[in-house]
């Protein structure tokens, strides 16, 4: 295990670029149950990093710690530090609303709000008021078009912006859930198995979209799907029982895993 933990300290070749996320000695408890043990992680800015590991290994918990959405549960206790571009996320003085403006999140099941497509996209601007006021009609139109173009939905939906977001197909819903994050210009996108509720065609389309967003955003993505991790990410983190076992660039992890447990998981021997 000690050997494995040290693997977490692995520094990717391109780490010269400033780290987007720097996690140190992160421990997390749900009540009495410890879900994360001394997690250290450095996520490279502008890259797609995938978190893999068997169910219950803590990857979703780790993801949900970054924007502190975990705290909704009320019985979560966290120690250690999470820094986003130097900002100490866990500092009690941090306004979670401002934090979450920087950190968008995509959930396992598409969860558009019970509003029109347009209002879904504009929701962030109405909450955060980037210009100190909600966007007017013209600005709103521009923002909606831009965001929907970025997620490749504009052509499909430009005539049905008043439809409820919840009435779209699941693939469209998930793209909409990504689109609504963009107008407030987050720097980091957290994605929790974003394709698990989609059919193969939808999965492919959303993966394509994620790949397209690479570079503009730092993306941390949890996935159960080995092929997806391999196809759609540049770095890969393998977790087991609340610890990070191995962290390397995706190609080398899949070709040549450093740790036996990683190898076993990748080969499908458990998980």
């Amino acid at each position, binding site marked *: 295990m000690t050997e494995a933990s040290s693997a977490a300290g692995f520094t990717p070749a391109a780490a010269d670029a400033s780290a987007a996320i720097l996690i140190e000695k992160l421990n997390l408890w749900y009540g009495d149950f410890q879900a994360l043990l001394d997690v250290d992680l450095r996520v490279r800015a502008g890259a797609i990093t995938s978190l893999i590991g068997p169910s219950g290994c803590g990857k979703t918990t780790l993801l949900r710690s970054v*924007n502190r*959405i975990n705290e*909704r549960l*009320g019985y979560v206790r966290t120690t250690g530090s999470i820094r986003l571009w130097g900002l100490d996320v866990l500092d009690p003085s941090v306004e*979670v*609303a*401002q*934090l*979450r*403006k920087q950190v*968008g*999140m995509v*959930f396992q*099941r*598409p*969860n*558009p*709000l*019970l*509003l029109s497509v347009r209002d879904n996209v504009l*929701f*962030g601007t*109405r*909450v*955060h008021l980037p210009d100190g006021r909600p966007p007017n009609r013209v600005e709103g139109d521009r923002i909606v078009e831009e965001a929907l173009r970025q997620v490749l939905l504009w052509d499909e939906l430009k005539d049905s912006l008043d439809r*409820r977001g*919840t*009435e*779209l*197909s*699941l693939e469209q*819903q998930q793209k909409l*859930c990504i689109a*609504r*994050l963009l107008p*407030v210009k987050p720097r980091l996108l957290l994605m929790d198995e974003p394709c698990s*509720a*989609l*059919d193969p065609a*939808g999965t492919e389309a959303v993966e394509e979209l994620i790949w397209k967003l690479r570079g503009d955003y730092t993306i941390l993505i949890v996935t159960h799907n080995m092929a997806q991790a391999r196809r759609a990410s540049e770095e890969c983190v393998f977790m087991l029982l609340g610890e990070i076992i191995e962290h390397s660039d995706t190609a080398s992890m899949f070709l040549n895993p450093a740790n036996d447990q990683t190898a076993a998981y990748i080969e499908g021997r458990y998980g």
Partner: protein
Amino acid sequence: MSEVAHAADRRDAAWWIDRVVQILVLAGGLSAIVFIAGIFVFITREGAGFVFDRFDFREFFGSPRWTPTSSHNPTYGALALIAGTASVTGLAMVVSVPFSLGAAIYIGEFATGRVRETLKVLVELLAAIPSVVWGFIGLSIMNPLIIQTFDVPVGLNVLNAGVILGLMAAPIMTTIAEDALKAVPDTYREAAEAMGATRWQVTFKVVLPAARNGLVAATLLGVGRGFGETMAVLMASGHSINLPTSPFDSVRALTATIAAELGETAAGSDHYQALFTLGIFLFLVTFAINFAADVFVRGGQRKRRRRGRRPAASANP
């Protein structure tokens, strides 16, 4: 299912219990229909004589003169009674809608653990206070209080009855509104919170719009409760035939009129039938209100079901 039972030829105790329970439940369900139809038939029959022989539409809805026991010129104008009921119910809604929506939002969206449970129990306790006790509070506490505070001649008026009725309607409205908020899937809240919305923004921009139908239904049921309430209104409104022009006017409600007069009216007399005509009118109005509330609740459910089905269908081509 009896075909299935035949095919399997398995009529054991569980099968018989199932049959009996089904019949009992069916009887229970049908009895509700039988009762409601029976009540309507009874009220209509008792009031029919008046409706067909004596009923004058313009007098009933246009005149405030309700003098059924006049020795020489009985008149049956229900306008003042309708205005009394409407004004008291209206004020009650002004009192209870903010109060109960606020309580529901606090209990459903903000309070946690002990506080939440305690509040829920308290609200339900409020619902358990009998009507006559509320009336008594109106008569002996609110009346002098209103006289002193507003320097008006009498404290039995629209204000008194409206406040009392508002407090009476608040628990049921709170409970139903809270149910409506609870029915909003948590994923909406999570999504909005993850986008950086504050708790209040989540509530106001996401949860309340999503629960709108349920909240309208809660309000309508509160209106129905206010409309049908009798004893407390009888005691707190002043029971005075009046077209109210201010909250400090005494008024008389439809229900209170029936309650006060029916007991001492000879069965079959014009007065008796006129009271039943008021009853028919009340029945129709409360029926319409409850029906509207039901439509709203169902409207919400149907939409939600459709929303649930459509994406699933498109996910499995």
